């Protein structure tokens, strides 16, 4: 047995007297028995000792309950996980965790987990069809899937295979990327665009950063949250929670959110914007900053003579002949007649163009009726924000961007950082310090003809079509349009998918217009679902494979950033898996590759065996488990291997793999400010108010389709024309449904207890749900302003039917002053009709607890980024008593 084994010295916690009963050091952390990773973190020295109270050991791993991806530690006692805490070695979350990791205990030990591979026995598929799942062996499951893959390859249809990725670790490059390509399918489809791609749009088309930003909270003096709810969700939750008290001591906080969010409750100003009208508000703020002359002159520049010419409604001629200063140089008047650029811009580009094209008319008084925020408040917030100068943060989130016309709102909100010069500044909005991990080696040599042929096919998700520019990182057609896959499948356009492997994703629940996925998946010939729980998507599966829980049961790593530090944090199997699982990102493709090799197609297996080796021993992997560790160790090598050229260069210098596993996290050096100014990866290298970068991308997309940019704007449902396409400009919110028939604007928000859509089967989730302002325990309430409740003759606590053009759900009504009259809000996450017996009201009868927002939301898109629009009140509803 040549299993890769390793030993780890793990510090027992608390006092030595208790420690004596445990033999902690030198215990095999990872041993291979019957092909399963068996993990024994503590071995009682004898049978008697096991009866003594154990305080256990803290073992490092990673929480992926939200996108903060925090380094955490798990207290393990007798092989059981019992507590969570932040990894004290981590500089990102500095030893803190939010409520989510605690909930993970109830996920890993959820009785409703899939215990072993299953196959469907009822060929009929549908929400109300019993799949008739029966247990099968891993071997049978892999044989069945391999046969399906071979069949597609034989028939020249391998492009009809798709891999749907959901939550993932960085090891996903095997299953998601390499394996899909080696088979020959172009369809590795990620979930990214149902998440937050439109948010990245704002930063990219102003400062060239296609990523989420970090924020220098410690030094900030003003924080303006655009739908961001940092103490509850977003991407740095424990860090933000920990710093928020300090932030409140030294900074003003304003929260723009149609709902009184957790952060709004802790803010100085709440701006309950009308959903989808964030853009108008951002433009008015920018207008005030310019008119009042309070922009950051050292970052943006100034009029040549220091005289503010931003007068409401008045265009500014960029080249002007300067009138000489009062009489003093009158004699030289003639030489002054040459027109000069009236505004000297420093680190930005296109301020006057933005003013002339858009901002000049965007007064607070203009914005007030559109966005619902009083002009006086807009003015006050704008002035306070600008007064904080480069220490003012405009914090963009999906709420203000994942809207049908959200791209320009995202740009406008992010452009405010440019106006006050907080981009890349101390106390401002920053990017990330470098990390040192690398991805899997090149696979090109292992592509056979069938694969090369398949890869030439267009992707299933319509990206790059005229109406779906999906311009990730400035490249048209490069972004995923996740939610479009259902429509593509239903229309067989561009072809009919025949085989899907989906993992840690549940699009039948998590995509807007969820009912379309029911139909599309019912129609799909073969679905393999890798999942912890029997979720909505699982109910359409032909093969179900139990997934390890990412926090407790598998190897992996992820990179992220918080608190001006980037970090690489390991997913570690801290307990023996509860179910009969395989690492879905590495072991499953390996096992499939073995089966494919048996069937005469050995390219993937050869790629795995020939291109990967353990950096410590130099040995190639011989088993799926070895392969996982080879890839993990090689990817993270620069974190822990002294011989790597990057070791210690950008952050922690950890000596050896074991030390890395023990520590669990590699921290980068602290982000250093000001490196990007004038080197922004935009077309102009400047921070662009007039986005030459967007212009280039749009023109490229238009050229590809032989149309004008205006045609692109039309096809993507935008109303701005001409040069407006290149500056942040006002776009009225697009909503589905006639206001007369559907009088309420429906909008949704996140829960601080959501481990994405997966924690609703935890009783702890249900029992503490009212920590989300306005919500109720064990329920999924529709929040409506009490004035509307009274007007409709309804009562608090009534069961109501909520209906949109897309569908209808029945939920309990909550009269609550935290939402604006005319709007109704509901948290995302509840309304599962599968997943387990806590998440549903009746699992067997498919009765949900509450209702799924995605069965109300009409499937629509922010098409420039390919994003699914789920915010901005894109769906109107009516509300009636049941």
């Amino acid at each position, binding site marked *: 047995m040549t299993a890769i084994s390793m030993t780890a010295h793990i510090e027992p916690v608390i006092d030595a007297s208790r420690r004596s009963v445990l033999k902690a050091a030198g215990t095999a952390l990872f041993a291979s028995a019957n092909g399963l990773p068996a993990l024994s973190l503590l071995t009682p020295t004898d049978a008697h000792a096991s009866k003594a109270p154990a305080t256990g050991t803290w073992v490092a791993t990673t929480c992926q309950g939200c996108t903060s991806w925090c380094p955490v530690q798990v207290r393990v006692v007798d092989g059981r996980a019992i507590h969570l805490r932040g990894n004290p070695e981590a500089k990102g979350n500095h030893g803190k965790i939010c409520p989510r990791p605690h909930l993970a205990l109830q996920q890993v030990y959820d009785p409703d987990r899939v215990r072993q591979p299953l196959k469907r026995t009822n060929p009929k598929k549908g929400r109300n069809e019993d799949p008739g799942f029966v247990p099968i062996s891993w071997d049978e499951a892999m044989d069945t899937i391999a046969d399906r893959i071979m069949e597609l390859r034989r028939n020249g249809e391998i492009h009809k295979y798709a891999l749907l990725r959901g939550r993932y670790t960085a090891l996903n490059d095997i299953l998601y990327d390499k394996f899909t390509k080696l088979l020959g399918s172009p369809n590795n489809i990620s979930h990214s665009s149902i998440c937050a791609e439109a948010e990245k749009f704002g930063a990219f088309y102003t400062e060239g950063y296609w990523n989420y930003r970090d924020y220098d909270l410690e030094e900030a003096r003003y924080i303006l949250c655009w739908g961001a709810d940092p103490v509850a969700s977003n991407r740095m939750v424990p860090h933000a929670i920990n710093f928020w008290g300090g932030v409140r001591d030294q900074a003003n906080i304003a929260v723009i959110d149609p709902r009184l969010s957790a952060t709004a409750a802790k803010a100085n100003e709440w701006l309950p914007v009308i959903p989808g009208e964030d853009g108008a508000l951002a433009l008015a703020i920018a207008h005030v900053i310019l008119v009042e002359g309070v922009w950051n002159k050292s970052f943006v520049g100034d009029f040549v003579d220091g005289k503010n010419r931003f007068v409401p409604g008045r265009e500014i001629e960029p080249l002007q002949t300067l009138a000489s200063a009062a009489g003093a140089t009158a004699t030289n008047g003639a030489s002054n007649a040459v027109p000069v650029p009236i505004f000297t811009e420093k680190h930005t580009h296109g301020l006057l163009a933005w003013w002339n094209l858009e901002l000049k008319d965007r007064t607070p008084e203009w914005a007030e009726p559109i966005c619902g925020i009083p002009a006086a408040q807009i003015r006050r917030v704008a002035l306070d924000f600008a007064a904080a100068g480069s220490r003012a943060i405009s914090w963009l989130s999906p709420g203000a961007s994942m809207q049908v016309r959200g791209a320009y709102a995202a740009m406008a909100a992010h452009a405010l950082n440019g106006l006050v010069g907080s981009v890349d500044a101390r106390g401002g909005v920053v990017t990330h310090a470098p990390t040192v991990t690398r991805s899997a080696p090149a696979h090109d040599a292992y592509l056979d003809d069938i694969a090369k042929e398949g890869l030439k096919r267009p992707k299933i998700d319509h990206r790059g079509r005229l109406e779906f520019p999906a311009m990730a990182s400035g490249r048209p057609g490069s972004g995923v349009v996740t939610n479009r896959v259902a429509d593509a499948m239903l229309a067989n356009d561009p072809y009919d998918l025949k085989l899907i492997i989906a993992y840690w994703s549940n699009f039948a629940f998590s995509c807007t217009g969820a009912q379309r996925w029911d139909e599309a998946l019912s129609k799909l010939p073969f679905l393999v679902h890798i999942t912890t729980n029997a979720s909505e998507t699982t109910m359409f599966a032909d093969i179900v494979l139990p997934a390890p829980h990412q926090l407790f049961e598998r190897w992996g790593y992820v990179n992220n950033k918080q608190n001006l530090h980037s970090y690489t944090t390991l997913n570690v199997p801290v307990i023996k898996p509860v179910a009969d699982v395989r690492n879905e990102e590495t072991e499953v493709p390996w096992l499939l590759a073995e089966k494919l090799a048996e069937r005469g197609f050995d390219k993937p297996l050869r790629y795995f065996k020939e291109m990967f080796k353990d950096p410590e021993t130099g040995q190639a992997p011989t088993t799926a488990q070895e392969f996982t560790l080879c890839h993990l160790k090689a990817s993270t090598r620069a974190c822990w291997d002294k011989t790597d050229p990057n070791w210690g260069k950008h952050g922690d210098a950890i000596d050896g793999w074991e030390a890395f596993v023990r520590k669990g996290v590699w921290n980068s050096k602290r982000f250093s400010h000001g490196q990007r100014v004038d080197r922004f990866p935009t077309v102009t290298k400047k921070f662009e108010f007039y986005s030459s970068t967007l212009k280039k991308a749009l023109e490229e997309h238009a050229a590809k389709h032989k149309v004008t940019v205006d045609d692109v704007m039309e096809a993507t449902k935008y109303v701005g024309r001409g040069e407006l396409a290149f500056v942040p400009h006002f776009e009225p919110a697009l909503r589905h449904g006639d206001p007369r028939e559907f009088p309420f604007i429906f909008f949704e928000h996140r829960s601080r207890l959501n481990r994405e859509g997966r924690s609703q089967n935890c009783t702890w989730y249900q*029992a503490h749900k*009212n920590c989300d302002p306005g919500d*109720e*325990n064990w329920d999924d309430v529709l929040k409506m302003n*009490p004035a509307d409740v009274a007007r409709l003759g309804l009562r608090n606590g009534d069961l109501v039917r909520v209906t949109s053009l897309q569908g209808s759900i029945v939920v309990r009504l909550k*009269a*609550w002053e935290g939402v604006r009259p005319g709007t109704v809000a509901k948290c995302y996450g509840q309304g599962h009709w599968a997943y387990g017996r806590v998440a549903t009201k009746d699992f067997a009868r498919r009765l949900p607890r509450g209702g799924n927002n995605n069965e109300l939301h009409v499937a629509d898109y922010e098409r420039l980024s390919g994003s699914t629009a789920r915010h901005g009140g894109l769906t109107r509803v009516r509300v009636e008593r049941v």
Partner: protein
Amino acid sequence: MDTELILTLQRGVIWDERVVGDLFLGGVGVGAFLFAFLLWRFAEERYLPLVKVAATIAPVSVSAGLGLLFWKLGNKLNVHQMMLNISPTSVMWWGAIIQGAFVALSALFAFRLLFPQVSLPRVLSASVAGFLGVPFAVAVGIYHGLLLAVLTSHPLWASGPMIVTSVLLFTVTGVAASVLVYLALRAAVRFETGPSDIFAQGLKPVALVLLASAALLLVTLFAWWVDLRFGSVPARLALQAMLAEHGIVLAVFGIGFGLLVPIVIGISLLPHFGAGRTPSAALVGLACLLLLVGGFTIRYAAVIGGQLPTPLSVMATLS
């Protein structure tokens, strides 16, 4: 809109009907004992059957009440812990001791009256048991009020009238129960009591005491209401909540049928407690029965209604 407050508390009443039963039966018991003792000491021989009935009711009723309480305990097997641990600050602990002693003394008293022929040591005479039992009976009566009155978290209970009510309740219900049972037994067994008019005449003071107590009870209930209605905010809210939930039952069965009707009956019957006249046994029985219904209803409303959750506006008071 009003302030919305949410706090998740354990649901349901903590002390249910069994505790109401305990308090009610305990009141009946001590009332019956005092009635029996006084009658035994001061009335003539002919009232001995009534004395025996009342004396018997005392330990039986209190024990039955304790039985209900025991049934209610979550961890019955631990009940001996009350004896193993001295908890002098706990009214309930004192109550256990006092009630234990009372049950023993009242049982002995009843036993001596029922079975005078059984020879026992002199110290166990009816007189000794009776005289010793009186303070315990009074203590038990007060205990029943005090048990709730010390719970300051419950404004409905934590008031002086609560204790007075408790004392009056045991007087009313103890006597009423004794008379009622006696009448029922007499109807069934027909024992010799001598001329009924003389018998009735002798009981006139009892009737007067009963009437007076019932009237006083009415006054006390009113005082209780005043106390709460014009008391602190929590008291007002607690009263409101109780009345909303139990107000109608309390008014109809506790005060209307439970006190006013028997008082009216009693007054109308008073002239019949005289020379040559006999009050209708049926009417007397009815009045007694109604008083018992009234007593139980008042206990019920007080115990169950008093536990309605404290308004969250009170619970959320930070100062």
